[in-house]
Every structure is written in C-alpha cells, then in structure tokens.
C-alpha cells in the first residue's frame, strides 16, 4: 500500500480523494492503540499529515484577536510554549494528556479527529467557541466546534476531508481546565470541565467532558454565574457558587461505564466547575 508523506494540504487532499479507504495519520497515539490491539487494520493507503508545515505551526491574528493552531501541533508545544500563555486553559488541558511521550506525539487535530467525549482539548475548544478549518479537493470550509463534534467518536468530517487548523478567540478574563481521574498522570478523564470568564463581554462559558456523548455546554449555569459574579474581582458569593455547581451537575448527561458511575460523574463536574471559578478569584493554581 502506498504511504504518502505530503508536504502541503493541497497534496494531502488529492491523496485522500484518490483513495476513499485512506487512513490519515497524525501523532498515532489513538490510531496505533487500535492497530496494536487488532481492532483496526489500515487497509488502504496511508496519508501522514504531521510533516505539513501549515499543520505544524500556529499564528496569532492580532486584528481578529485569535490564534490559529495547526492540526498537527503537539500537546507538548501547547503545554510549554508561548501558545500556552495565550490560551492558558488549553495549556492546562495539554498538561493532563497522557505522559510526556504521548504529548510529544499527540496533536490537537488528532483529538478532534478521534472526537472522544474524554478528549482533553475538546472542552476548552467548546468553551472558547473555537472554529475548525477543514479541507478537501472541493475547497476549504469553517465549522464551529459545537457543530463539528456530533457524538461519541463521531464528527462532521466528510469523506476525503481533513482537519487543517483550529481557531481560538483570545479572551480577556480568566480561563481554566480541570479533570478527575484515578491518578494524576496517564489517565483518561472520568469527568472534566473548562470554565471561561470573559470579562469584556461579561459572559461565562462552561464546557464538560466525559459526561455526555460529546462535549456539553451548560447554558443555564453560564447565565446564572454571569449574573452573580463580580466582574471586577471575579468573586462569587457562596450561595451563588453552590447554585452554579448544581446547575452544571444537572446539565451533565453522564452514563455509568467501566471508568465510573453516572452519579459520581454528575457530582464531580459540579465540584470541578465550582473549583475552577474559585480559582479565578484566588492565587490558587493547579499543582
């Protein structure tokens, strides 16, 4: 079978158009687990996308106040570089992905391609209202992340299409990500949450991972907190914060599976969301 190592998106999409059974390979950290386990065997051509400069780089757009992150930018680059300072919640999420070896290989685009409800980068993209740029031989299109993620490991990619980049608005205010797992390293999230406090627009965004078929936003909790938070200090009265946590829990839709129970997950996302909001008005940081 042919193994293609294209150096541009334009070449890559031609390969994808030529072979409907082609497999797109970025970091391989999801795909190879399935291949090693015998659950998946690539049977068409392989299109390796992690050598494409456009996918390997990121850029800040000062006019639009956003950053565009190439699909093959690794979690390591997000965690440790200047990109992490621009989008701190994404850096925090990146730091919780697997191990250094996994973060060196795993990519943000790969997280979107797999589209697991436990993907650590995804709640951050959802809370920030990121947009995803897709490409095929028919051209490029931009999809809001909320429309891209359609279900458990299902996304809006069409046959022959690939993920090019993610554009994330830069937010003035506070943002954070937290997750619960059985230990600190090398865990898949049992429950996760991202909170974004947009001081300029006085808007709150909350997105949850591992508590629904895909990433969930919490419109009721968001409205409740936006009206009760002190937008200067980001402090919230205890009663209002309790209420916020309850709304987050009630907006989650968890299931019981081999990793945890629905009850625990529902409780945990409420705790995580409250903890993040408390972190916003204090000097407390994740250890």
């Amino acid at each position, binding site marked *: *079978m*042919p*193994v*293609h*190592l*294209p*150096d541009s998106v334009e070449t890559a999409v031609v390969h994808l158009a030529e072979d409907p059974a082609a497999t797109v*390979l970025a*970091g*391989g*950290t999801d*795909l*190879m*687990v399935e*291949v*090693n*386990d015998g659950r*998946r*065997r*690539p*049977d068409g051509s*392989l299109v*390796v996308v*992690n*050598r494409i400069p456009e996918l390997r780089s990121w850029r800040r757009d000062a006019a639009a106040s956003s950053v565009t992150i190439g699909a093959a930018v*690794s979690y*390591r680059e997000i965690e440790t570089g200047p990109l992490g300072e621009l989008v701190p919640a994404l850096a925090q999420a990146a730091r919780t992905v*697997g*191990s*250094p*070896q*996994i973060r*060196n*290989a795993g990519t943000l685009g790969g997280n979107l391609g797999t589209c697991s409800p436990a993907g650590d980068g995804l709640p951050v993209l959802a809370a920030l209202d990121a947009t995803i740029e897709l490409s095929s031989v028919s051209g490029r299109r931009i999809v809001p992340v909320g429309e891209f993620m359609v279900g458990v490991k299902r996304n809006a990619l069409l046959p022959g299409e690939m993920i090019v980049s993610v554009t994330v608005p830069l937010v003035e205010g506070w943002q954070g990500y937290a997750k619960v797992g059985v230990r*600190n*390293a*090398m865990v898949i999230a049992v429950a996760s949450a991202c909170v974004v406090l947009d001081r300029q627009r006085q808007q709150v965004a909350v997105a949850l991972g591992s508590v629904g078929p895909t990433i969930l936003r919490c419109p009721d909790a968001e409205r409740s907190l936006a009206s009760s938070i002190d937008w200067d200090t980001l402090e919230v009265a205890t009663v209002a914060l309790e209420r916020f946590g309850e709304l987050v829990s009630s907006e989650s839709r968890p299931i019981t599976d081999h990793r945890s129970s629905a009850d625990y997950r529902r409780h945990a996302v409420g705790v995580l969301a409250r903890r993040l909001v408390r972190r916003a008005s204090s000097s407390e940081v994740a250890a």
Partner: protein
Amino acid sequence: MTHDSDHYVLDVNGAPREVTDSWLGESLLDVLRDRLGLIGTKGACEQGECGSCSVMVDGVLVCSCLVMAAGAVGQPIQTIEGVAPVGAPTDVQAAFVEAGAVQCGFCTPGLIMAVHDLLERTPKPTDTEIREELAGNVCRCTGYGRIIEAVKQVSVARRGRPS
C-alpha cells in the same frame, strides 16, 4: 513523497536500515525489535502507558509502539543502542548503576532515553519536574526513589563540568 508500505528505509542511530515485508500499521517498536534486531527497546503495554519502548524520533521522545514505522521514513530515530556503545555508558547510565536504580532492568532502556531527554531540556529539574517528566515510564520493581536519585546525581555532576 510516497513509498510502499512493505519496503522502505529508516534512519536508525545514524544509519540507513532497510525494512522489507512489513505490513502497513506495523509499529516502530516491532520493526526495531523483530526486523532490525534492536532488542534494547522493550515492549509491554503496546498502548503508550508504560514507556518501556521510548525512543527519540525527529528529536522528540515518543513511545515507539505508537509510531507507525512506515510513517517515520525520513526522520532520524535514536534507540538505546544509539545512546552509547556497550562498555562505555553515558553519565545517566552510570548514575543508574551507582544509585541502584536498576533491578530487573526491563524499564531501564526507556527510562535512560527519557532521562537524557529530560536533562537536555531541563538541566536542573526539581523533584516535581522529575516526577512529572518521568510519569510516562512505569517501573514495577525498583521503586522510583533511586531513579529520581540517579537523575539528581547527573544533574549535579553536569553542573560541575565545564560547558
């Protein structure tokens, strides 16, 4: 650039190594061990959790079990065999012996790769940094105390030498 999935050349430890009769999807770990005879790299979990198969690909530390070998064409690969010749250990290898950080030895090649990478990027790591950076390398018998001790020994010793 396009090549065939069952016949390609990998750049391993500075030398071109021909791989034939490989199947698409074969991991770099399996190609290194079973086709190229480089058995210093160990395999255990095959899902990126244990770190025993850690190698450097294109200058970054990765789990070779999660690298599709056919996709690594053109990228420099360094395995434990390429770190130092037998009989001439690196400072990290010597420190592992000195600190008693090797018991059964199965995790050791992966850890040596990870520690070299860690000290290249962070010459003076804190205990927390050492623990976080080595979180992807599981040891089940030595315990991590002596491994961390070995890392610190190298860090201190390197500071004393002229740069």
